[in-house]
């Protein structure tokens, strides 16, 4: 009888280097994966954005290492923000990482401005919170969606910097 191997990927050396409004993800894998996705979000937020990492090279070590990297742009966090990330191969192997994204010299006196569509969402956030505060129980899924809306409010806003930049 022939027993087929069912190799799975192994993720090693997953690191994130924060920059100014950008973060760089690097890692390497052993095994057969052809793609790696990297999901990320501020710590405590369940719904994550995801990017495909770029395959850089495969060396001749035994077993061979495949190197991956990627950049996350447009990160404009509040005050120093802790992020959670997860790298996931196509065979389901995953590894997690946490890093702190700098706050771009944010000031507590900066103004957070919401576009008109976000104001409609704020109304829904308010209505949901009000309802939750009066109900004996709610669906967990409803609460996840509530938190997702709040998470969106952190993305869909603009900053008027107190220092006039």
């Amino acid at each position, binding site marked *: 009888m022939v027993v087929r191997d069912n190799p799975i990927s192994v993720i090693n050396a997953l690191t994130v280097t924060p920059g100014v409004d950008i973060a760089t993800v690097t890692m390497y894998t052993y095994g057969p994966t052809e793609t790696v*996705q990297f*999901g990320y*979000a501020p710590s*405590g*937020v*369940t*719904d*994550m954005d*995801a990017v495909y990492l770029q395959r850089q090279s495969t060396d001749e070590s035994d077993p061979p290492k495949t190197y991956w990297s990627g950049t996350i742009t447009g990160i404009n966090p*509040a*005050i120093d923000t802790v992020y*959670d990330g*997860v790298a996931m191969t196509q065979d389901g192997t*995953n590894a*997690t990482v946490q890093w702190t994204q700098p706050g771009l010299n*944010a*000031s*507590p*006196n*900066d*103004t*957070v*401005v*919401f576009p008109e*569509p976000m*104001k*409609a*969402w*704020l*109304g*829904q*956030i*308010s*209505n*949901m*919170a*009000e*309802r*939750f*505060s*009066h*109900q*004996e*129980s*709610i*669906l*967990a*899924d*409803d*609460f*996840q*969606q*509530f*938190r997702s*809306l*709040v998470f969106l*409010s*952190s993305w869909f*806003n603009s900053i*008027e910097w107190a220092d006039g930049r």
Partner: protein
Amino acid sequence: MTLVDPSSTNTVDSDYIAFDDIDREALGNIAELARQFIHQAPTRANYDAWHQMVLDLAPMHLGTEPENGPPPFSWDYRRTFKIS
């Protein structure tokens, strides 16, 4: 693609949760502040404090059969994301 934070508590759509009195009070404050944000753009400090109040909520999981029966209705979040 939506990935799920592996550190979060696993739930399924039919799970029910409930809040204690502290969280209920916080939810009332969250609701009031969100209403204020619509009319008056908050400072970063106030917005961050509001966001942290949401992150600090710690609902209790009741499983699929809440003691007091299901809530009277369910929020249709899918409708929410149609707003552009």
